[in-house]
């Protein structure tokens, strides 16, 4: 296992390098650049050319990449083209809000999904199963922006229980309760959207396991159904759930673009969208690098977790 881990970690570095090369190249080949898109009547031709030079856009791609890489190796992710602020700051200030939102939503979605999934699996093809199925699919058949809008309409406008948009009350006294109050709606929308899929995964792999002979044996031995569910079935049904958790680790920091947009949450998803719409290459490269590290990490953790849940799994 240790040798395997060492190999996994070592191989990550050339892969990260490869990802940055390809992403940089693709970005350079994508139509539109940060200066091309400036059409501001207050600018003169000279202003445009100065900007192009200042941003290094007059140089060939490979030189730009080499300069970028040299800086990164020295620990400098560069400066945002649009704001002039260091990329580390632009990205860094998003971390806490992003994790607050996605983390809460993730916890909520597991709290909803795992019990619900187990419940409907044990009541398969009864009316509760169909009702949950219907709700789950209702949730995913409308786009997230629409669910968010619906939440705002119902809880923000009609009932007036919850504030809409932002993280705090402007000019208010702040405090944890105020922040929590602002968090409820976006986190719930995100959790509901995520819990749907998760419920189905738990349900289906529970069903798979419940059909296995050892569960039937346990039943035949006269064990209580709840014990069977919890001790025998759930653990073996966890593999796909672990995989999903591994896949969700990068998403945790990548943020939730639409939810952030609708609720004006200052997360990483919106930064990504802003950076793309302004072709802010240094910021995008910073985000890509972080995503790549998290993807590698998430999948590594999932692999380790597999062998914990099922000790028969071995990696050579």
């Amino acid at each position: 296992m240790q040798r395997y881990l060492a190999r996994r970690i070592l191989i990550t570095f050339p892969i990260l390098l490869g990802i940055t090369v390809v992403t940089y190249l693709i970005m350079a080949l994508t139509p539109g650049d940060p200066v091309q898109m400036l059409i501001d009547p207050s600018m003169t031709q000279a202003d445009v050319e100065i900007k192009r030079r200042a941003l290094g856009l007059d140089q060939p791609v490979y030189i730009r990449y080499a300069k970028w890489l040299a800086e990164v190796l020295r620990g400098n992710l560069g400066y945002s083209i649009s704001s002039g602020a260091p990329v580390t700051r632009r990205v860094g200030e998003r971390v806490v809000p992003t994790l607050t939102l996605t983390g809460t939503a993730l916890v909520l979605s597991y709290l909803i999904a795992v019990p619900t999934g187990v419940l409907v699996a044990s009541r398969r093809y009864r009316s509760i199963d169909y009702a949950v199925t219907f709700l789950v699919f209702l949730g995913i058949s409308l786009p997230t922006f629409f669910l968010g809008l619906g939440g705002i309409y119902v809880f923000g406008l009609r009932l007036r229980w919850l504030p809409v948009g932002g993280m705090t009350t402007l000019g208010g006294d702040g405090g944890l309760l105020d922040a929590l109050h602002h968090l409820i709606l976006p986190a719930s929308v995100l959790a509901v959207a995520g819990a749907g899929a998760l419920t189905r995964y738990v349900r289906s792999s529970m069903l798979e396991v419940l059909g296995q002979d050892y569960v039937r044996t346990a039943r035949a031995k006269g064990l209580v159904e709840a014990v069977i569910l919890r001790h025998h079935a759930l653990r073996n049904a966890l593999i796909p759930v672990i995989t999903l958790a591994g896949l969700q680790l990068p998403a945790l920091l990548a943020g939730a673009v639409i939810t952030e947009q609708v609720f004006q949450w200052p997360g990483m998803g919106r930064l990504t969208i802003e950076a793309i719409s302004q072709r802010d290459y240094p910021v995008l490269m910073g985000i890509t690098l972080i995503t790549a590290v998290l993807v590698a990490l998430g999948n590594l953790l999932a692999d380790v977790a597999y062998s914990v849940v099922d000790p028969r799994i071995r990696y050579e």
Partner: protein
Amino acid sequence: MHRVRARMTMAITALLIAGLLLPAGVWGGPRSELVVVSGMWSPPNNFSPINTDSAYGYYAVRFMFLPLLESRLEENQLKFYPALASKWEVGADFQTFTFTIHPRAAWHDGRPVTADDVLFTVMTISDPRTETNRGNAVALVAGLDARGKRPPGAQIGFRILGPRQFEVRTRTSVDPQAFLYEFGSNMYIIPRHVLGDVPPDQLSRHPFMQNPTVGNGPYKFVQYKTDQYVELLVNEHYHLGAPKLRRLFVRIIPPTVMMAQIERGDMDLTAGAGIGSILIDDWDRVKTIPHVRALSFPLPGYQFVVFNFQRAYLEKRVRRAVAHAINRPLIINQLLRGEAALAEGPIPPTMPYYHKDVKPWAYDPARARSLLQEAGWDAGRTLLLRVPTGNIIRERSADIIRENLVAVGIRVEIQKTDFPTHLAAIRAGNYDLALVGWSGSPDPDVSSQFRTGAVYNWLGAMSIPLMDQLLDEGKATPDPAKRRQIYNRFQEVFADELPYVVLYYENARNVIARRMSNVLHDVSGFYQFQTYSWVAAPQ
């Protein structure tokens, strides 16, 4: 172990459910003091008074930094009012301009605003190493090249007459209105004592541009919570009188939620044209909200179809046919619910130089068909219409335009892309027709778009000798009466040649809370610099 976990799960769930059910009052008290919130759609990238992006950044900058003058449109005439300058004089030669800075004008750290600061601003903008988007503000100043940059060793036409007085000379005689508008009201003055030692090529990355604590306007910068809000606090020593509202917020908020916040009373005003206004779908709804006023008024910005002049088949008769084929009245009356105007050219109907006698071409599909026939239009040809995303009305209008053109026998394929891709494709000449918009300006000089080879001429890449000649003449003529004749002629030529088919001049759709008064907007639909006179009643 299991029981503990189960209990915790239950406790957390109970807490969350309680959170949902508690009435809002329990969560946070009322605001401790009166605050006013205005909303815009996107965040400012930075607060550089000479280099912030687009209108979002300048909206925030305008609370903190002033230009020398303020321009207002009054009865179709451009009028100037004091901002940092209290007096200004135009020389008889239409070439020298003398400005006197207000005796009490001061920076937020207490230092006086001086002629030296203005010179520093001009020198910085004209330095070929500075990243700026204010080049046009100084482009007329003597000693600078036509692109507003300073050749090495050049003497510029700027003379300091006293600590608070200076004289600017232009390269040639100019229309005073044009100069005062660009130099006077479009250039925000920056502090020499803070930025004087920063190398020009480092300015755009200087921390001041993220944290502009030393301004000269009615409000001081408190903080910017990224993508959330800009917080501003009153400048008690503002030279035109301390503002009556202590705290202002500029909240960044998408249009749908902006509507919800307005309805809830969380937001007092929309930022204005193009950066924060009411969605057309919500326009009727907002009018029914009792605690706000919905204001619509004409703006100089317009949307248009541009033709690719590199395509020989898009000749004059075909362009005219397109103008006749598009049902512009339908777009204005149905899509925009009447909140728009039409003119067959780039000079806004509300502006001094608008030529009333040039009437828009009528919606007339039969005329369009016969023009196409005359031009020998190949019915098998498909035109590529490029549409950028980001403006819902414009995207919807594309569907109407396509349907209209198909109806007269022009096949059209739409390609919708994000804005950078859209512009890149146009620059590459990869289009037949494209939808774009300009914000419009009170000065009639539109040569940067229509003059052959000018900075924005790639949009269409038209080269129309008569138009070039008129634009050059108009620029070189200081006398307003003669200019009017030239630009009248220009508008006639424009309607005849049709490098663009203008679709509509969209009205501003703003909202101002009824509790607020003394809120006025300027030429471009933004609030005037007189934010110090805003008043709001407690909620």
